[in-house]
């Protein structure tokens, strides 16, 4: 799991334990994600995937273990940690009365960034949001369109760490493929990406490492590559999820 260079990794979790409502959700969880690497965290419902993301965002207090995001402890300095994190929730919620430009400008301004209109257009182009939709209020957006806006935000923030919570859930195959291409692009820029997902094929397509989470801990971690047996992995994933 963690190697000797883990202390330099933009995302580092070491022995993290966390309970919610008296139930242990994460138990001695350890993982690390290097710069330019994507780590896909898979697991059944309630395995602790989204809780891991929330903990990295500093939204949940850890009971034990260590976390670091670009060298910042999100428990000690949650707001500083959030400034170096790009976060893409499963269901991207935008302000419905605002259009894509206004949403992006607002959320980025909160993080201290003021991108130009051209830069926003460039990011939206990269995210694949149609030009004629950008001026519409997001109340009329589909889930995929909202997700593209959030991806554009993540691109514009140019942060070293990206946390993706079920990023391809509800997307059609074409949009999923586009998204995976985007993840590869972000990796090439040196971004460390942690994504939680149920989409094993997508993970195999764009992630470097896949970790199976069960009962709050990594039970198996595999490196992706041309020799990866996805069907065997799928079988083991099913077993891990059932466990």
């Amino acid at each position, binding site marked *: 799991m963690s190697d000797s260079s883990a202390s330099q990794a933009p995302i580092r979790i070491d022995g993290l334990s966390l309970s919610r409502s008296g139930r242990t959700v994460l138990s001695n969880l350890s993982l690390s994600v290097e710069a330019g690497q994507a780590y896909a965290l898979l697991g059944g419902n309630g395995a602790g995937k989204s809780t891991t993301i929330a903990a990295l965002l500093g939204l949940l207090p850890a009971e034990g273990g260590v976390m670091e995001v670009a060298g910042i402890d999100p428990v000690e300095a949650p*707001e500083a940690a*959030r400034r170096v994190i790009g976060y893409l929730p499963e269901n991207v*919620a935008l302000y419905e009365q605002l259009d894509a430009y206004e949403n992006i400008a607002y959320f980025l*301004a909160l993080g201290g960034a003021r991108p130009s209109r051209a830069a926003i257009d460039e990011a939206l182009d990269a995210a694949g949001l149609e030009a004629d939709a950008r001026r519409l209020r997001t109340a009329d957006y589909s889930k995929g369109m909202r997700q593209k806006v959030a991806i554009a935000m993540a691109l514009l923030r140019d942060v070293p760490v990206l946390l993706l919570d079920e990023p391809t859930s509800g997307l059609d195959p074409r949009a999923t493929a586009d998204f995976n291409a985007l993840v590869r692009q972000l990796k090439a820029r040196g971004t460390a990406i942690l994504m939680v997902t149920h989409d094993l094929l997508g993970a195999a397509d764009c992630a470097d490492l896949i970790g199976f989470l069960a009962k709050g801990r990594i039970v198996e971690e595999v490196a992706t590559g041309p020799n990866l047996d996805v069907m065997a992995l799928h079988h083991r994933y099913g077993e891990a999820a059932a466990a």
Partner: protein
Amino acid sequence: MSSLRLVARNEWQLMRRSRVAQIAIALLLVLAGIAAITSIAHRNANDDLRARFQAQANSEFDGQPARHPHRMVHYGHFVFRPLPPLAAFDPGVDAFTGSTIFLEGHRQNSANFGDVRQSSLLARFGQLTPAFVLQALAPLVLIFVGFGLIAREREAGTLRLLTASGASPGAILGGKALALSGVAALMLIPAGLALLWMMAAEGAGAVAAGSLLLGYATYLAVWVAAIAGVSAIASTPRAALIALLAMWAVATVLLPRVAPEAALSVDPLTTKLETDIAIQRELREIGDSHDPDDPHFEEFKTSVLQEYGVDRIEDLPFNYNGLLAMEGETLTSSLFDQYAARETAQEKRHAAIVTSFGVISPTIALNRLSITLAGTGMDGHRRFLEQAEAYRFAIVQQLNQLQAEAVTFADDSTRNSDPVAGRRVRIDPEHWHEVPDFTYRGATTGERLQAAAAPALILLFWLLVAGLFLREARNYVLGAH
């Protein structure tokens, strides 16, 4: 730009694009504008009417023909309470207490012609005045505009994105509260303009008007903090709305009606009829100045004869009947003053109880502050009653003195049997002009500010509590994730 200001600006942008917020705010502004205009017009019309009636009463008194002075004592005089300039902002108890008193010898009449007694029951539930709009309706509109400030974002999911984007819980809550404060400030504009008009055109004092506006701003700030705090703590927008509506109903509708009832049950008020009967009973005990055999007045006569060294009242250098009337009036007035003092003390106790309810309802604290600064509270009414009674006593005694000095005892004693004497006791009507007109002196700004200190302190206490509540609510912005 700080995160707090960014959040506030964004919230303003969302409100500008929200149909519900637009309609609610526009409706309130229109209502506040109408309230200001109609209230100023109503106050001016009422004040003009009272001034006209006062002038007419003065003129009728002055225009009386030659009469016996004691006839003038019984002819009496009407006095009207002028409305203070800020009555257009908050008419207070004016509609309930009556605005005119008939003054006459030997009697103390109550004030009459309160608007409420002449109008429908609806008038009892609040007139459309700037004070009513800001005390009761503005918090309601703020609730409808702001109940979802945090709860709505939490439900929609934008709250997590907001925090993930770098906004701290304090900045989010503070920014939202700041945006709602902007709405509250907007609501104060019609009232502020109305107060400026009252200062410029009606002569309202700037300090009182400014303090009034400051009081209302504090009150709305308390509501803003409560709304933002509840929205942060509530699990859903619906729960926030229900909690806030319940708070509004209790604070602005229920408690302001319960407080006076509680004061009455703690310290029951003597009815007007009971007071009148008690006064009459005591008057009988004091004696009857019209009764020549009354023991008290017999004793008085003896002391006067001794003082002037004569044996008969006919030998006194003045008309004894006039002096007798003066003595009678002094005794009855002193009795009236005693009862009035008791009533005043009781009203003050009631007012203190009602003001103390301000600790559980900021609306009560503001109401007390508002009517005190406007000069339209019970203090102002009591002041009018006291000045009217002092005036009544002064003019009755002036007329009694005329009887003592301008009418001879001989003529006075035979005026009913001797037509010539009957004519002579009717003195020159020029004397009626010597009776001064009634001039009501309202409380000074200093006196009003002093009287408003207690409710002002309670409002400041509310502001402190609201600030602490908002500070505590910061912990719930993320805590409910």
